[in-house]
């Protein structure tokens, strides 16, 4: 038995951590958050060269052929750096969807371009992952797909979209398709706008090879990646809080020597510790323990959503008023954690699903 990362996985972690430390500064994040496009093309380019969009794509299509655990490792590093790049939708959920449900033609059409970083796919399956809100609905006829699909992840700069109808059927549509209009809505996380699709008889490719359970696997993968991002973001907020508390002086003492402050940091550290194991295990289960995959994912994301919120709030408080300002940029992590919580089901929804899964309803 070995519970932890392999040497190769630690290398992947190190290489992404190093690259993100160099490439993502507060200025980078701020530029995306205040920019028009919601994207940083050079950062995307750099991370594509490092293999970020290719992680889950098989070698046959130019990918790295890795598994969910590696994707979770990368997601955690992206969260740690509040990296303003598309990942959960395009690199995790869309690639996995093509792997699981795509025809050979669909795979060879999309996956090589995605692996090279030349194509991004936005994902709009919130209607089946977290529930349809405010009249979100699509209808299918022989002319195509019509309706409204709000809250599309990684919609900024997407070349195509993966969407679902209420029955959970999955479709790919080209962003330039006739009858499709796309708008971006700003979110609390300025680096993560959500797309809104309005469809009027848009011709689509149905992903025909979906089998029972594939939609669950796709949603699970997205949830694991979100939980891993929140974990990385939470760890970074704790690190910053501790560093600040060791520097800032009041009453002739660094504030980190006061128990009131120390205990806030200890509480964050304590709650975060088991979260690492929850995330790794959910990813591992996704890869090799299919019977445990859904439950361990639900437990991991619901817990990370709650611990993430506590850490985001507490780390901000340790910074005092500085934490509340824009100057330190701590709020970018706070907002990423808030964004992740609401994506693909918040904790109450996930716990409800976990109860259903175990027959507790």
């Amino acid at each position, binding site marked *: 038995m*070995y519970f932890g990362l392999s040497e190769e996985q630690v290398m992947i972690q190190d290489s992404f951590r190093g690259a993100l430390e160099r490439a993502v500064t507060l200025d980078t994040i701020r530029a995306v958050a205040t920019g028009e496009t919601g994207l940083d093309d050079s950062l995307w380019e750099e991370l594509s060269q490092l293999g970020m969009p290719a992680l889950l794509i098989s070698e046959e299509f130019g990918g790295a052929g890795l598994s969910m655990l590696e994707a979770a490792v990368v997601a955690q590093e992206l969260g740690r750096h509040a990296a303003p790049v598309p990942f959960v939708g395009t690199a995790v959920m869309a690639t996995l969807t093509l792997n699981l449900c795509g025809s050979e033609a669909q795979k060879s059409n999309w996956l090589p371009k995605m692996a090279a970083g030349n194509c991004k796919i936005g994902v709009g399956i919130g209607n089946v992952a977290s529930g349809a809100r405010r009249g979100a609905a699509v209808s299918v006829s022989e002319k195509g797909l019509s309706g409204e699909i709000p809250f599309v992840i990684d919609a900024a700069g997407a070349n195509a979209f993966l969407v679902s109808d209420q029955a959970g059927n999955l479709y790919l549509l080209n962003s330039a398709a006739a009858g499709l209009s796309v708008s971006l809505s700003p979110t609390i996380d300025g680096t993560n706008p959500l797309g809104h699709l309005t469809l009027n008889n848009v011709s689509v490719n149905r992903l025909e090879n979906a089998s029972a359970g594939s939609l669950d696997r796709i949603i699970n993968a997205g949830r694991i990646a979100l939980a891993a991002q929140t974990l990385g973001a939470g760890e970074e907020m704790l690190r910053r809080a501790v560093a600040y508390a060791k520097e800032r002086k009041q009453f002739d003492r660094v504030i980190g020597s006061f128990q009131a402050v120390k205990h806030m940091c200890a509480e964050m550290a304590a709650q975060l510790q088991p979260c690492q194991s929850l995330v790794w295990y959910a990813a591992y289960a996704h890869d090799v323990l299919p019977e445990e995959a859904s439950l361990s994912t639900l437990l991991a994301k619901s817990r990370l959503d709650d611990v993430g919120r506590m850490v985001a709030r507490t780390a901000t408080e340790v910074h005092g008023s500085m934490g509340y300002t824009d100057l330190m940029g701590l709020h970018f992590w706070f907002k990423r954690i808030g964004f992740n919580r609401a994506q693909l089901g918040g904790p109450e929804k996930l*716990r409800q699903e976990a109860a259903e899964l175990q027959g507790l309803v």
Partner: protein
Amino acid sequence: MDLRDSAEHQKFREEVRKFLKDFKDQAPEETAHTFRLSPRPYTQQVKDWQKLLVERGYACRNVPKEYGGFGAAPDILKNKIIADEFFAADMPQGLYGQGISMLVPTLLEHGTEEQKQAWIEPTINGEIMWCQGYSEPNSGSDLASLQTNAIVDGDDFLINGSKIWTSSAHIAPMIFCLVRTEPDASKYQGISYMIFSMDTPGIEVRPLQTMTGHPSFNEVFFTDVRVPQTAVVGGRGKGWKVANSTLKHERGMLSNANASQERLNKIARILKEETVDGRPLFKNRILRDRFIDLQSQVQGMRLHEMRLLTNAERGNAPGLGDMVCKLLGCEINHQLDALAIDALGEIGILYDGIPSVQEDGIWQQWFMYDLGLIIGGGTAQIQKNIIAERGLDMPREPRAVAG
């Protein structure tokens, strides 16, 4: 990540399973936990079971053969397999308690050959119970300020002072105790760790009634208690260091995710089987939400322990991950007790001696006892100091007394 057993561990797991099947009839009803809740001498059946487990290497398996143990090479995964298989089979595991879990590792690390020969074997077999004389009325979280003192008198020490919160002192024949022997040395350098008999003249034990209604700890008074100088473990004035290694073992003992999992399973049964207005309790969405929330925390601790196991197996020094276990484990258990009590409504407030209440778990007693554990063995607040200062490298609280 690879959570499968190696061939050797798979074989070992099968051996444990076979043992549990073959010896099911000999297992006692009572477990180490029930003895901890209300301390009393071990029954013969419990001692026989313990002796069998020690012989087979399913308890104290790493204690060397020359001291009565099984002498297995350290293999933390085998210890985990034993714990998990006993848990899965719902069979009582080896005893734990102050003697086995705290004194024995301390003697192995710091004891003289004579001390090891004398005390380890009867302790691991459950024949000798120990109590721990650490806290004093004025020395709780600030343990090193303790004032119970010993002065040299010929070949002996004469001990005067008092201890408090001494679990099992009313039944234990032996005590390990912290005593100030070097009054001129600094706070931390003046303490010695001693072991001696509770039958020594001059010792008075007064049981302290606790909020659970079950006496589990005591006040102990020492008046000119004569103890040979050979009672010191680890050298005069070295007691603080020795005690810290003991406390480390205590903190490990106070968290155990399998025990939390067992309570969670009990609560799941309650939610399925108990009804209100003819509907099962789990139809209540709020109880269900609290249950799943705690399930995620228990799962987190179970997996966290596995991660720590791998760390330990790789020879990495304990770190932040180990320091959080007592704080988190005790808190989760207390929340589990609270959920069970809330789910049971009026049934949940019935107390001692009602058979139907005992079957579902003695939740009110646990609820209070676990609050005791949040406070004891280093309060939650002391744990947070340790996490912050040692785990996060934050500055220490300025010390009132130089040490």
